[in-house]
């Protein structure tokens, strides 16, 4: 009973946090209190007030507007990254698991090599090659996280393909590709959804970390990560600059983690017992 309640609460709080993020991200593309890029040197480092709710930064730009615009960027980057990682991972995972043989072995050798790097390190290396920009991050993080999708999908495909209904689909004369698309893939959805949810969190965190290091979305475009990096030198003069962007990242992560827990408990029966 209590567990049920906790699950509901998790899903509700997590869903609300992510819903608000999405809403703010969409709103920011239409309206922000101020232009997030407009420099106003007469209003530098102002503390929070009626006019600037969360103060202004070292160029006199409104923090609330920049946070809103940053939400849009973060959400968009994370969404596109997870989508590319999932599409790439599912494609390679299904091919490896269904075709097997030497192709499977070759794909998995490359995949395991990529898994031998911590994700963020691989992304750092790829950013060194591509240079800091929005599409570079999406590609780098997508490539860095696709290998874990490949692993999960391949494992699921390997277990599903031995089932009787797959045999049945072949016996009645369906082609391999039809069987794969119509019968194998739908059975991989649950683990992919669970993985994609937590991956969304990793990507938000990794993107803000890369931006914090100056290897993410380049300024002046605001992201929560590069706002925190810019706030570091003004820690004693303008502490509010260090608080709000981090809080936004933390709340987003909390939302994803809670939603992820609720989803896993629902979709993964082995964990549901716990």
């Amino acid at each position: 009973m209590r567990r049920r309640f906790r699950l509901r609460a998790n899903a509700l709080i997590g869903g609300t946090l992510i819903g608000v993020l999405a809403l703010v991200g969409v709103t920011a593309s239409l309206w922000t209190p101020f232009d997030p890029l407009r420099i106003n040197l007469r209003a530098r480092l102002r503390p929070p007030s009626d006019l600037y709710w969360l103060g202004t930064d070292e160029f006199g730009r409104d923090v609330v507007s920049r946070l809103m615009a940053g939400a849009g960027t973060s959400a968009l980057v994370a969404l596109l990254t997870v989508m590319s990682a999932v599409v790439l991972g599912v494609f390679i995972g299904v091919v490896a698991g269904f075709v097997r043989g030497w192709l499977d072995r070759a794909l998995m050798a490359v995949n395991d090599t990529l898994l031998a790097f911590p994700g963020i390190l691989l992304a750092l290396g790829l950013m060194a090659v591509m240079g800091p920009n929005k599409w570079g991050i999406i590609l780098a993080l997508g490539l860095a996280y696709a290998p874990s999708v490949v692993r999960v999908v391949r494992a699921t495909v390997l277990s599903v393909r031995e089932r009787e209904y797959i045999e049945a689909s072949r016996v009645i004369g369906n082609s391999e590709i039809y069987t794969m698309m119509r019968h194998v893939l739908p059975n991989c959805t649950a683990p992919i959804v669970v993985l994609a949810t937590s991956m969304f969190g990793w990507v938000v965190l990794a993107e803000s970390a890369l931006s914090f290091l100056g290897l993410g979305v380049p300024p002046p475009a605001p992201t929560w990560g590069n706002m925190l990096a810019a706030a570091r030198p003004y820690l004693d003069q303008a502490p509010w600059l260090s608080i709000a962007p981090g809080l936004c990242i933390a709340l987003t992560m909390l939302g994803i983690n809670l939603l992820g827990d609720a989803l896993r408990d629902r979709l993964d029966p082995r964990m549901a017992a716990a």
Partner: protein
Amino acid sequence: MLRYIIRRLLMTVPTALLVAIAVFVLLRLVPGDPAQLMLGDTATEETLAELRRQLGLDQPIPLQFLYWLGNVLRGDLGRSITNDLPVLPLIVDRFRVSATIVVAAVVLASIIAVPAGMLAAWRQNSPGDLVIVAGATLMLSIPSFWLGLLMLLLFGVKLGWLPVVGYVSFAEDPGRALAYIVLPIATLTLIEIGVVTRMARAATIEVLRLEYITHARAKGVPEGRVLWRHALPNAFAPTWTVIGLILGNLLGGIAVVETVFTLPGLGRLLVDGIFARDYPVVQGCLLFTAIMYVLVNLLVDLLYPVFDPRVTAE
């Protein structure tokens, strides 16, 4: 046992080789001519050709790889473009700083989180469990670099107890060195407590449901002994793997924390190398960190049978 160790050691060789190939290929994807990058725009065609010959860039790619690999195996990772120092000593020097922080944080986090996770599992769904799980999920959600900034804000700026910028090595002055690394260690410890607590809790819950635990309880073994003597050894094995993964991941992502606390660690060396387009340094850092990650995982696997002797029985 010996067969397990030998098999696991042999598995590391192809992984390390593939990692080396991946790092080599990655840096070959960088647009532009390495010789041109090293010498700058003022270089003449002759000096460029000379450097290309020296670097072996006029050879076919597979030969270049073997040449590079040979150097790496002899401990030669090339020289930094920015300051012409050999890369390997530079890396080892910086690695000491990063390793101190990461290892200290992981040890501290494990000491706190494993008992906390077990306690939560023991009283599953109690208010205490709820508090521990909520706390762990919260810690899991806070980015390390933000927690670091908040710590600096509180202990450095507001209270003035600890320095905000700088680093002193232990060799120079152990007391002051500690003052510079206590906040980074505390930051990483708090962050990692979240992951380890959740893992320890989940693993303990699985174990507590097994029959031998019910049996021990039925015999009248006190609860404390059931947890520490009967449940912990079996619950710790999966947690141990996660601790190993964290150790490796922290090494990969240490740059952000080093940036917050202005520490001269390996992560900062890599990021500065990326900014300076100092490709020998970038290549060296990537290779070194990835190999460390492989070695940490190897060590974790080799020690695994100590906690769970069943794995060697297969």
